[in-house]
């Protein structure tokens, strides 16, 4: 049981990253690939947050005096994830705009049919 407990969030984040990588490596549709990038971002965010989690503690917001400073989780990964989410959104928007332009030139989203995108 403790094995499941220890691994479930890692499975979530690792699973999302692997699914994202799979999409990027195998799928041929550009928008699918961008969805894959989004999944990778999400997976890394979950990884960061669960690194900072400590069992049985609460969020680091001292809104009432009941909360003891020894009883809060690590605030730093949460701060990092906030930044990472913003960066993810920025990349997503830019990627979609470039994909629109690629479609405009090629009339297809299939990367195997676009000469410049084969790798």
């Amino acid at each position, binding site marked *: 049981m403790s094995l499941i*407990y*220890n*691994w479930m*969030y*890692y499975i979530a984040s*690792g699973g999302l*990253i*692997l699914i994202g*990588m*799979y999409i990027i*490596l*195998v799928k041929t549709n550009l928008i699918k690939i961008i969805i894959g990038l989004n999944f990778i971002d999400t997976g890394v965010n979950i990884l960061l947050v*669960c*690194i*900072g*989690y*400590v*069992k049985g503690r609460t*969020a*680091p*917001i*001292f*809104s009432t005096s009941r909360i003891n*400073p020894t009883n*809060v989780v*690590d*605030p*730093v990964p*949460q*701060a*990092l994830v*906030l*930044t990472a*989410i*913003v*960066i993810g*959104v*920025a*990349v997503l*928007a*830019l990627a*979609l*705009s*470039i994909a*629109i*332009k690629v479609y405009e030139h090629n009339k297809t989203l299939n990367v195997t049919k676009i000469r410049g995108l084969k790798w």
Partner: protein
Amino acid sequence: MRTRKIISIIILLILAGGFILTFSQIPFGKDKINVAHYYISKGIEETGAVNIVTSVVLNYRGFDTLGEVTVLFIAAIGLGAVLFTEKRVQKHASKSKDDKTKKASLILRTGSNLLFPLILLFGAYIFVHGHLTPGGGFQGGAVIASGFLLMYLAFPKQSINKKSLSVVESLSGLIFVGIGLFGLIFSGYFLSNFLPKGIPNTLFSAGIIPIIYIAVGFKVGFELTSVIDDLLGRGK
């Protein structure tokens, strides 16, 4: 295609192996806080913000947030540059057709009219209270942008004046950098918290944090709005 699949599965297996080997070294749910002890124990008295995440985001690691805001700015500007089209066709060829089919239904239009100011106020609430409750400039900005998005969805022909958007964006960015430079002048460190800290857990506390969060909120909100505007290809 087949070889591609095999190669990718090998890559994925290597990646999965790496994850298993590394994650097993980081026990989940155990206390492994190191540097953050300092933030948790000293955060309130040093920054005046009860939300330690906020004080980390804007004070201890304020430089990251400056970078984050810059990234979003780049995305908005870059998207504008990529989707820029020189000649704007003024009239749609088949205007009469659009009118009825593109119009949203009355319920949606009226509902979004009613909700729009409320959503804006809600976004403002979130970024003003960034140092007291969860949330902050970025989340509030996203809420504001969602409000504008609602209006874009409900009224296909509406657009915003892009000039004023970009002015607000630049001004709020300049406020952020300017506060940093003021900190450099007043106390010798870039982005230092030079204002009085106030009493924790009240609205007017935490020195520069609320000011920066308000600036960030406006900046993020209007940037995301201009992203949507550019993607939809409206405005001028």
